[in-house]
């Protein structure tokens, strides 16, 4: 019996082996190397944690693209947050951002020097912080893709306190997929799109992408079987020479997505061109607050001084950008596991739980002895 999407109920080793055998047969028929890019740190965690690459043929590579929002947050954005903290604002941010290096220092460094920096679990916790401290200016350094942009939009729509401000570094993934697809150094044959981001956006938005770039896109879930099923579905498209779109995660994703969440994002944010750390200037991929929300915009309300300083020379050697573009692997970096470790990260890829380098070090980064 062939494993189909409705059969992906539990973690079933037999189904995994069957899917892996299918994939091996597909690759034998395709008879040339295939590179699939996924754009989600959670996909990378599942792939690494369950050793899925070891189940796949050698000529099938699965690489992680720009799927770690902390990693693509640009250094000047971190610098803005640090500058606001040092100017006496209380900066609230997600835990992942706390230690991400800016040009000169991270928010963690700023806090250790006496600035007020708070780690929050959600956008609404940042609002609570502002409500509880009416005499302080609380700046929520808001990072992440669509799944966290929607909550930031929601708290801004819900009439937050006057002393609550947002420094938005939110980013929108689909344009980054286009940029990566166009990069001359990347040779991506298909994308495995991120399940829960598509819970918000819906998978229908990838239709244009598949048409324009002639690449298959399959939305995948986060169970090992979901990933293997998604890979098999992609190879079906490749074998047929088609650039199709499919949803291999119907449990979590619909064609139209979460209309309420997308509505909130559209009302609060507009999209502008912006630099994704180490990758490129990406058009219409940065969420910035619309004029209607200027009263809560940290960039509009405060003069954010540019940083002064040369920064850490090691960051010049960091190839995090190439890794996120899928053109290099962590092991190709001289700093990986040496000067750059999770406890002493040089680049953002080693900071976040979703960072390619941190995952590689945790699950597969041991040296060959």
């Amino acid at each position, binding site marked *: 019996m062939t494993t189909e999407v409705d059969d992906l109920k539990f973690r079933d080793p037999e189904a995994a082996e069957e899917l892996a055998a299918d994939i091996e047969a597909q690759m034998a028929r395709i008879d040339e190397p295939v590179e699939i890019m996924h754009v989600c*740190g959670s996909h990378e965690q599942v792939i690494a944690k369950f050793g899925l690459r070891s189940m796949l043929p050698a000529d099938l590579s699965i690489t992680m693209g720009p799927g770690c929002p902390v990693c693509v947050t640009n250094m000047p954005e971190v610098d803005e947050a640090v500058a606001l903290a040092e100017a006496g604002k209380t900066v609230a941010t997600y835990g992942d951002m706390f230690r991400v290096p800016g040009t000169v220092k991270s928010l*963690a460094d700023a806090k250790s020097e006496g600035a007020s920096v708070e780690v929050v679990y959600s956008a609404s916790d940042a609002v609570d912080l502002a409500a509880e401290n009416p005499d302080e200016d609380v700046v929520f350094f808001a990072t992440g893709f669509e799944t966290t942009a929607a909550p930031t939009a929601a708290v801004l729509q819900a009439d937050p306190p006057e002393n609550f401000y947002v420094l938005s570094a939110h980013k929108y993934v689909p344009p980054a997929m286009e940029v990566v697809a166009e990069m001359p150094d990347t040779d991506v044959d298909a994308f495995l799109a991120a399940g829960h981001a598509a819970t918000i956006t819906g998978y229908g938005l990838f239709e244009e992408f598949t048409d324009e770039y002639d690449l298959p896109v399959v939305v995948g879930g986060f169970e090992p079987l979901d990933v293997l099923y998604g890979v098999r579905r992609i190879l079906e498209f490749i074998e047929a020479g088609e650039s199709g779109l499919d949803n291999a995660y119907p449990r979590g994703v619909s064609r139209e997505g979460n209309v309420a969440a997308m509505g909130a994002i559209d009302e609060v944010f507009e999209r502008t061109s912006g630099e994704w750390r180490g990758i490129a200037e990406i058009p219409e991929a940065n969420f910035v607050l619309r004029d209607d929300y200027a009263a809560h915009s940290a960039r509009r309300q405060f003069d954010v001084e540019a940083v002064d300083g040369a920064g850490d020379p090691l960051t010049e050697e960091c190839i995090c950008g190439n890794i996120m573009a899928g053109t290099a692997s962590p092991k190709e970096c001289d700093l990986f596991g040496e000067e750059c470790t999770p406890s002493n990260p040089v680049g953002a890829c080693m900071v976040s739980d979703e960072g390619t380098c941190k995952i590689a070090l945790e699950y597969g980064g041991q040296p060959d002895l």
Partner: protein
Amino acid sequence: MCLGVPGEIKEIDGHEAVADFWGVERRVRLDVVGDAVDVGDYILNHAGFAIRKIPDREVEETMAIYESLFGDDVDEALDEIGAPQGADIDLGDEQPAAEPVGESNDD
């Protein structure tokens, strides 16, 4: 994390709710869930916001998948929702002591 975590709604007060995640209760906002949610429904929580109501027919399967995904170590799932382990949190309580490393905001 990109990974949302499913929980059962226990209380609702406007857009604010309390959801149970494997025995730990945590505040969840309902602003952007996109569907009507009642006590007893299951939602997918992401950074303190429900981003999807899990259809009734998929609840059992979804919970089983998550339990298998997290293995015997439900602590990982609790870490995902930012819960201090072994403690219940009710509406109005102080936030847990922030542990900077290990929390994720990614989608």
